[in-house]
């Protein structure tokens, strides 16, 4: 069964009619973990706001769990969970008070759905008497997530939920999403972290209000046809500049410890490239051919 269906949705803003969502269609199956991935301003947040009935589209239709976003907005508000980029916590209420407030609004209690939020909540529970205004950035984010989950929504909309969350907690957070999915909760999530994108069942790559492709992470990576190289040197910034200046370079960018690069002619002339690097006095140079990741696919798409 389809949990979320979007058909020809368009949204513009302001007098200038700036196009934020451009005739988009997609659907998400019940219990699917679906990722919206795209650069800032791609239109992700507008889609979230339309699907959670906080914003009206200019044209097109959309439904969540069979409810129409315009006609049945009340039903949708009662059943979905939404965590916007900037979740409004009550700064002068404590962690515990914030959470019970959100539970009460939806006519439930913390105890009733504690198992849903447990994994994340235990991390901030020791500070439950602390006011939200005094939490660190990542702690606020964890509390916001618990608040969005506490009424056991059927569909969960998460707009960049792990921004500001540390790497270890991000991992735990995604394990939690997996478990929610097992309980047949549908999840639509956006994230700037490409390692998270690869954990979704399917992802939609978006740019400029359009969906460029929808596929499983595996198939998106498989569609990357160019030969990709990882190159390392003791000094990263000079290496990046050298790569940029090499005439045979198609695209090059930093990628943690390595720089990644693609070359014209699939790099038939490796010796010439090595000579070029040697001339530039880079030390500790290492070159290897590698498999692309989602992040490489994303960068290529936007290049």
């Amino acid at each position, binding site marked *: 069964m389809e949990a979320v269906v979007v058909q020809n949705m368009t949204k513009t803003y302001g007098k200038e009619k700036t196009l934020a969502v451009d005739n988009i269609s997609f659907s998400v199956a019940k219990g699917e973990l679906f990722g919206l991935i*795209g*650069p*800032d*301003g791609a239109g992700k947040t507008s889609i979230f706001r339309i699907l959670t009935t906080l914003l009206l589209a200019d044209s097109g239709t959309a439904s969540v769990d069979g409810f129409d976003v315009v006609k049945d907005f009340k039903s949708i508000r009662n059943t979905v969970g939404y965590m916007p*980029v900037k979740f409004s916590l009550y700064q002068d209420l404590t962690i515990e008070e914030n959470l019970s407030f959100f539970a009460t609004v939806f006519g439930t209690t913390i105890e009733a759905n504690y198992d849903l939020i447990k994994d994340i909540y*235990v*991390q*901030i*529970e*020791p*500070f439950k008497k602390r006011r939200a205004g*005094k*939490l*660190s*950035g*990542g*702690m606020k*984010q*964890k509390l916001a997530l618990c608040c969005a989950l506490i009424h056991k929504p059927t569909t969960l909309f998460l707009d*960049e939920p792990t*921004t*500001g*969350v*540390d*790497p*270890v*907690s*991000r991992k735990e957070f995604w394990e939690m999403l997996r478990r929610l999915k097992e309980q047949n909760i549908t999840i639509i999530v956006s994230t*700037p*972290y*490409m390692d998270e994108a690869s954990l979704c069942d399917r992802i939609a790559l978006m740019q400029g209000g359009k969906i460029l492709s929808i596929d499983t992470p595996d198939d998106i990576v498989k569609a990357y046809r160019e030969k990709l190289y990882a190159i390392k040197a003791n000094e*990263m*910034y000079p290496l*990046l500049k050298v790569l940029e200046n090499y005439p045979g370079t198609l695209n090059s*960018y*930093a*990628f*943690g*410890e390595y720089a990644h690069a693609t070359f014209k002619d699939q790099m038939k002339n490796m010796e010439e490239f090595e000579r070029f690097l040697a001339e530039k006095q880079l030390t500790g140079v290492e070159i290897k051919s590698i498999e692309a990741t989602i*992040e490489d696919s*994303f*960068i290529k798409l*936007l290049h």
Partner: protein
Amino acid sequence: MAQGEKVIVCDKLTKRFGDFIATNEITFEVNKGEIFGFLGANGAGKTTAMRMLCGLSTPSSGKASIAGFDVYTQTEQIKRNIGYMSQKFSLYENLTVKENIEFFGGIYGLTDQQIETKTEELLNRLGLKSEAKKLVGSLPLGWKQKLSFSVAILHEPKIVFLDEPTGGVDPVTRRQFWDLIYEAAERGITIFVTTHYMDEAEYCNRISIMVDGRIEVLDSPTNLKRSFGVSSMDEVFYQLARSAKRGD
């Protein structure tokens, strides 16, 4: 990295809130021109420490000097010699791009002439010329962040403190942001940056990782990976964070 001038010297710097110790006796030094990564799990005490170093919050105990100025007695001089980008957005959303640059230029005491040149330079460098009259609030996050970084170093400070500048920024824009960081570092501006992206940890000359208010390790990314016997900064971070007690 040349063992030259030390621009941050920090000795047992501590911040307590009631009987909770948010930053616990941290001791370290940062060299001029260095890109220093200040890492740690949520709630480890990074923002708290940074606010003390910027002269925005008075330490409970310990010593620190920033660009030679004391964090207890010379906070005004500190503020004039540093740039700071807070974890929350630091520009005015309801002013235009150009107005923001002019406003902060004024605060930093630049002359009208300097402001004009800087504005021109900056709009060109960031490719924001056609956006100059747009409200900052209407820009995508990544652009805002690049703009606030450029504004934070408008007065060519000795050090710039960046608290999670790339949080929520997409992979392509994140890399453009780091280009700006590299350029500033090349001009001799010391960079002190927090991030939760482990690939960005690799771009730093040295990094420290805080656990429960303390600095647990401090070294270059290469040395850290070697001493933990792992191949990525991710794994270094996992091993350290798992040892955290706060909250258990």
